């Protein structure tokens, strides 16, 4: 998503990316990020939580207006109400790239 934001910014659009993995900025150089510690697939909030979703979007809009530095990151204080194992963010089947790299993943964990 960082590359898409860069492309759009080069075309003259102001962008804000809402993401947990803000550290990819170091690989890509992302213009503006709003970092959120929510599970992938529900970055704006819980199903049906209109108030919570509005709050997240409003924070992103405020940051879009206020940010002055390329590469800016705003860390939101919001935290997901469930522990990781109860979020069920993952797909029903292991993704193909994970299945193809299980040994590398095990090796990374041992480091």
């Amino acid at each position, binding site marked *: *998503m960082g*590359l*898409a*934001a860069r*492309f*759009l*910014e080069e*075309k*003259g*659009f*102001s*962008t804000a*990316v*809402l*993401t*947990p993995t803000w550290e990819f900025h*170091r*690989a*890509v*150089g992302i*213009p503006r990020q709003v970092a959120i*510690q929510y*599970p*992938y*697939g529900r*970055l*704006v909030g819980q*199903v*049906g939580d*209109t108030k919570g*979703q509005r709050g997240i*979007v*409003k924070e992103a*809009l405020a*940051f*879009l*207006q206020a*940010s002055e530095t390329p*590469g*800016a*990151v*705003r*860390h*939101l204080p919001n935290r997901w109400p469930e522990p*990781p194992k109860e*979020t069920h*963010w*993952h*797909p*029903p089947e292991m*993704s*193909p*790239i994970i*299945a*193809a790299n299980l040994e*590398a*993943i*095990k090796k*990374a*964990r041992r480091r």
Partner: protein
Amino acid sequence: MDNSEPIVDGFYFLPPGLAAWIQTFIPEHDFEGTIPWKPLEKPISETTFALVTSAGISCTGDTPFDMEREKSEPSWGDPTYRKIPRGVGETGIRVDHLHINTSYILQDINVILPIDRFAEFEEEGVIGRLADTHYSFYGFQWNGNGFLDQAVAPMAEQMAAEQVEAVFLTPA
């Protein structure tokens, strides 16, 4: 950093091995290249917005994102995009993505593409205008940047035609 809020742990929800593996793709040093930068030149309340997600959302009747090829070629991800009109409801979409649980988006599209929230903000005067067209591409792009030409470039053309000035993006 722009504030003193607690730092977000981007890998909090991932299993430790997967988190460690993904982090091997992130350099330890700061980004050293040029970062494109288009400051917002007017208040949010006068700005026209479009929304983009990489959640693999398509409208009913459109060609869905290609999951079958990725299953046989694990490093391939569909590089195309789909238009999503404002006002589309959960019954008008499908979601194809092999890296997330898509069921929540099918219950409430706003959890990843907050079209209804932006429409509310338009009505309340918080934003200037919400464009007629929004967009999804597919977040898994492991093999090159072809999606920039095949997805993001045509999206940008449509955004320009709709006088969009700012874009809110959510990855998946």
